[in-house]
């Protein structure tokens, strides 16, 4: 009886059908089209952001590679050798210098000599010859060393040249005596073009100088035509940022205020990567020596037999707190422990016990005794407090974020260890007597690819770069160590 009322209503409503107005489908169709377009636009925005992030990441990698290449390229060693040569040359009395004064860089022909001009010079120089070329041979060696970066050693006032410079010597001393077997044609052309760099300073009556003038005119004309400076009309670009902001607004409207957001989180992180202590080994005890002007002291430690900068490893672990400040921007901070290891070789008989740890005693270089070289590890330990701002490029279950910020790294200690056990380890902390800075400031750039496992947890992979604004040592080096690492973060979402 109790259900009679309901049954009556259910029967009355059963199988009822009402025709909706025709406008309903039209409105629905428009909404379907709009949804499809929105989906397309969302995809476009996503790919735009992904492309922008990729370009930025590629740029950072390129910058890092360039920095690394610049520090490790043979050109740096060549520059060092060049300064050696020029200093030796400067010490020579002007009266002892053969030939005219050395030509200045830039006085001669431009470096980017075309192959055609160089070939013309091959023929011209093969016919010309002349004693004046031999007279300026020594200057050319130096100039070539400057231009090519090849090593030129000076021994008892006699120049010994190798490679390209040797070809130049042969060519200039013995006109027409180019031996094709000694170098390939490209090398010959290059060497000859370099050889002619100094010729405009010679007597203008020589046939060679005529060729130079002619080729210079050709080159000048070619430069006018092929000038790399091109004025391009800047194309009008679509504003990307307002578009992104508009999309954010749309997403905000769509998602509403109740959508789940990660506003505050704490994460545990570990990272490992490469530690590059700088081209001239600022992390090495050589640089630790404040008395680098003392030649004896500079022998306390020698670098390992590698031509590139010393590369070690870096490890870190820490706790990070993150807070979302706007829909896309987050700020993160925390505390990390850093451990940076780099390896060197030493020939000091007493590893650091008397010298390395004590900044002042480093000056007493004369008391150093030498032994066979042995490897040592330099372990730098820091407590780091980073502050980073992050921009959420993709904020979904799968997240992508760019981070940039700074970090204050407080030195705990530096430990020098001999893995072979010949000498005991030694540690040096921060302080006024320490050769190490107490606080180092570093720039941080990283990307964070993350995946939300549940409402509470998110894991992420964080490849990044840490670049020290100052050398680790108080003096003795101007190079900046940097770390490239990959981190793993486990995030607990608080709210």
């Amino acid at each position, binding site marked *: *009886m109790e259900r*009679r*009322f*309901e049954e009556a209503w259910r029967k009355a409503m059963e199988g*009822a059908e*009402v025709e*909706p107005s025709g*406008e*309903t489908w039209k409105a629905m169709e428009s909404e379907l089209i709009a949804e499809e377009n929105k989906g397309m636009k969302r995809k476009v925005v996503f790919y735009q952001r992904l492309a922008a992030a990729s370009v930025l990441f590629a740029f950072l990698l390129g910058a890092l590679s360039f920095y690394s290449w610049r520090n490790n390229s043979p050109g740096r060693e060549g520059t060092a050798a060049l300064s050696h040569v020029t200093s030796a040359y400067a010490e020579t009395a002007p009266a002892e210098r053969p030939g005219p004064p050395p030509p200045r860089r830039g006085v001669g022909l431009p470096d980017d000599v075309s192959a055609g001009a160089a070939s013309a010079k091959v023929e011209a120089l093969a016919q010309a010859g002349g004693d004046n070329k031999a007279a300026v041979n020594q200057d050319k060696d130096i100039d070539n060393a400057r231009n090519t970066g090849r090593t030129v050693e000076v021994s008892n006032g006699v120049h010994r040249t190798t490679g390209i410079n040797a070809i130049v010597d042969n060519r200039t001393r013995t006109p027409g005596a180019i031996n094709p077997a000694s170098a390939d044609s490209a090398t010959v052309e290059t060497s000859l073009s370099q050889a002619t760099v100094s010729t405009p300073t010679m007597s203008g009556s020589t046939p060679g100088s005529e060729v130079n003038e002619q080729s210079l005119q050709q080159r000048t004309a070619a430069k006018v035509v092929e000038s790399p400076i091109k004025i391009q009309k800047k194309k009008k670009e679509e504003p990307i940022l307002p578009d992104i902001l508009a999309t954010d607004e749309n997403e905000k409207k769509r998602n509403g205020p109740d959508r789940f957001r990660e506003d505050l989180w704490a994460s545990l992180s570990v990272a490992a990567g490469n530690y590059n202590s700088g081209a001239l080994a600022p992390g090495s005890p050589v640089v630790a020596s404040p008395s680098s002007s003392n030649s004896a002291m500079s022998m306390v430690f020698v670098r390992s037999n590698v031509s590139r900068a010393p590369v070690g490893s870096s490890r870190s672990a820490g706790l990070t707190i993150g807070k979302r400040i706007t829909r896309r921007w987050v700020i993160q901070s925390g505390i990390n422990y850093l451990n940076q290891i780099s390896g060197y070789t030493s020939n000091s008989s007493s590893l650091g016990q008397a010298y390395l740890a004590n900044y002042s005693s480093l000056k007493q270089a004369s008391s150093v005794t030498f032994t066979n070289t042995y490897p040592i590890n330099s372990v730098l330990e820091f407590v780091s407090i980073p502050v980073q701002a992050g921009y959420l490029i993709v904020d979904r279950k799968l997240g992508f974020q760019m981070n940039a910020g700074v970090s204050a790294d407080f030195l705990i200690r530096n430990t020098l260890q001999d893995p072979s056990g010949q000498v005991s380890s030694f540690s040096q902390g921060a302080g006024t007597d320490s050769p190490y800075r107490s606080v180092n400031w570093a720039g941080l750039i990283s990307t964070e690819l993350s995946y939300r496992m549940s409402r509470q947890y998110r894991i992420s992979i964080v490849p990044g770069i840490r670049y020290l604004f100052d050398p680790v040592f108080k003096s003795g080096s101007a190079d900046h160590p940097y770390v490239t690492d990959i981190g793993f973060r486990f995030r607990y979402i608080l709210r």
Partner: protein
Amino acid sequence: MFSDKELIKGCAEGNRALQKALYDRYCRKLMAICLRYARSTAEAEDILQEGFMKVFANLKGFRSESRLDTWMTRIMINTALNQNRQKLYLIPMVDVNEVTIQDTEEISLARFHFSELILIVQSLPDGCRVVFNLFAIEGYGHKEIASMLNISEGTSKSQYNRAKSLLRAKLIESGKEYRGYGKKI
């Protein structure tokens, strides 16, 4: 004539013709449901439109565990509830301790046209209307309704009793006999 399976597949792929076919097949039945939950025809059409958009968006996830029309009806009801949710907050959350529904009379609504009944239902206050639809027509229990609307079971019961008394009054007002299976007493 497309089968439900073909319609589902085509709609999931975004085929506009099949979307229109699905709409044409079920829109009248679903419109009748929407009318019961809405205050007006325009509001019912809004619910229908939003409900169909959800249907098209979620058809990929439809696993044929239930009938397609049952699944779509559930979506329409949920859409209607979401539309009414704001208004439902206005329902006085007063628990009625013991509500005894003394209802022994036999009624018949055969004399009423569907549109008349719909108008009577639409005239109910929002809370009463929703609870009446869920309990009397859809067959949900008060516990389920309380859970769905985030109200207490007592509130659901009291809302239903109020709906019942209001409906009786409206039926009497209409001047048509509804007692005793349509027989005049």
